[in-house]
């Protein structure tokens, strides 16, 4: 990842892509369906990433990656990692059919979803991944439906490796990417990446907001390896030490997009998170599905 790209100031997803590429090394090919990624990787004749990179139509990212894997196999190149770098709209809404298809075929590539929780490149429109209560231009009073849990949907495809991460925890993201690189088959990593213009907070807080999301339990970091669910250290810490848990109100009130949420709604959300964490504590280290 090279400096001087066209991402907004304080972009969480460039931070995530930077660490993913550090972990994967030079022998990597990126397939990128339409997203902010297409913009910040650059306009012809220059790009901001120093590995081969292909822009794809919105719904066709995983399909193109499958083709790429097949092509490399036919040429006998075994040391090249193919990744698909897609936004949450390209993953949860538009690209979900070809993503599901490639997971069912267990195509040998890594799918990264960087989740900024709306269509940010076109100016913040609601996506399937937008959390309830969040303002977007298409949900001016706050979204009523809850967020689609893509990572668990992918885990239900019984792929070898599914993980969630956050751009504010580069070490966690780096480790999971390194681990995914060694596994054969379809791997899926879902990264929460704070977006200053779309989430309405100061650019300088980009890392802090992501950390608050994890510390409050709003976003969980975990891995599902061969069907076994395991929490990652940052999330296990808040489970084992409830006193280190940050009230979700801090995370909500730090962002302008949740300004429509009332105190009642926040209390309700806190209760939902508490009960979610209880269930997660029971699941830790056990198979996720029957």
């Amino acid at each position, binding site marked *: 990842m090279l*400096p001087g790209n*066209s991402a907004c*100031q304080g*972009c969480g997803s460039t931070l995530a892509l930077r660490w993913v590429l550090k972990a994967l090394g030079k022998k990597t090919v990126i397939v990128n369906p339409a997203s902010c990624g297409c913009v910040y990787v*650059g306009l012809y004749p220059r790009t901001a*990433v120093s590995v081969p990179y292909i822009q794809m139509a919105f719904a066709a990212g995983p399909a193109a990656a499958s083709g790429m894997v097949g092509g490399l196999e036919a040429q006998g190149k075994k040391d090249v990692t193919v990744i698909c770098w897609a936004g949450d709209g390209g993953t949860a809404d538009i690209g979900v059919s070809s993503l599901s298809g490639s997971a069912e075929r267990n195509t040998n590539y890594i799918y990264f979803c960087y989740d900024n929780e709306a269509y940010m490149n076109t100016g913040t429109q609601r996506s399937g991944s937008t959390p309830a209560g969040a303002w977007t231009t298409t949900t001016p009073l706050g979204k009523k439906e809850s967020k689609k849990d893509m990572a668990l949907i992918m885990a239900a495809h019984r792929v070898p490796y599914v993980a969630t991460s956050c751009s504010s925890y580069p070490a966690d993201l780096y480790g999971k990417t390194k681990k995914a690189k060694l596994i054969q088959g379809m791997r899926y990593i879902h990264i929460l990446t704070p977006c200053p213009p779309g989430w309405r907070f*100061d650019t300088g807080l980009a*890392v802090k907001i992501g950390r608050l999301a994890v510390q409050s339990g709003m976003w969980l970091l975990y891995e599902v390896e061969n069907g076994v669910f395991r929490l990652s250290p940052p999330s296990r810490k808040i489970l084992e030490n409830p006193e280190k848990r940050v009230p979700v109100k801090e995370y909500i009130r730090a962002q302008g997009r949740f300004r429509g949420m009332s105190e009642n709604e926040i209390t309700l959300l806190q209760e939902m998170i508490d009960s979610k964490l209880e269930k997660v504590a029971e699941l830790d280290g056990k198979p996720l599905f029957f």
Partner: protein
Amino acid sequence: MSGIFEVRWHGRGGQGVVTASRILAVAAFNEGFVGVQSIPWIGAERRGAQIEAYNRISRTPILLHSQVYAPDAVIVVDPSIISEDNNAVVRGLKSGGFLVINTARSNIISSLRVPEGCSVYLVDATSICLELDLQVAGLEVLAMPMLGAFAKATSLVSLKSLEESITSSFEAELAKKNVDAVVKAYESTRKAHLMPEQYVPPVPPSKPIRIPEIHHWTDLPPVPVSTPSKGSIGNTGDWRTRKPVIDKEKCNKCLFCWMYCPEATINIDDSGFPQIDYNYCKGCEVCFNECPRKAISMVVEEK
């Protein structure tokens, strides 16, 4: 006036161009024009990116719904667009048309080239916005005063209908501020007298690109391949207003700033200290907030 009067706005994201174009359409309708249109044209939705907006105003309903290619009037909200490319602003402008410019920087007027017979009007919208504190998220809403200047230049819409249109789109206090800006601009707009050599033949409107017929794959053009390079969008250091400065006395080389920099502008020098590449640092302040020893301070940029 007969036929359709077409207007093109040039500005940057965040200056209120699209809103002003919508207000103009409503004002023209209040004025008695039956056919009015307001069309935004935006590439990547990003603050600071060049954008355009269009208006069509007519006595009869308008059936044309395209972008405006041959405008009767061009409104330039951000003068730096003219210094970047004069022809981009006047392309397609009819001779005898109107050019309304925000002259925050007067040096661009002497280098201006306009089609023959055009009248050029000047207004200092930036000062008006600063004086009335007309800002949104720290950016001046330069497009609002331009409405007053447009009304003065073309006499197409009256101040009264502009005022009605503004009052219907903003809350009372905000509307008053905007109306004040429009009135102030109306009063201070003046006609510019250009040198004879500044009038040039009209620049033809840009034509759509023709795609050549392809019968065989050898007819295809060579595949365009981008090469990786720093600064793929230019020197992004121009974006920042405050720059981070590392105090080497306090720094303990923990490299958290290097780890969290979203832009990859922080490198490690030979002695292990982080070093910031100011050509590309966008001034997002992440390193300033994440430094555990508070060794980074933000200094206002001198430009």
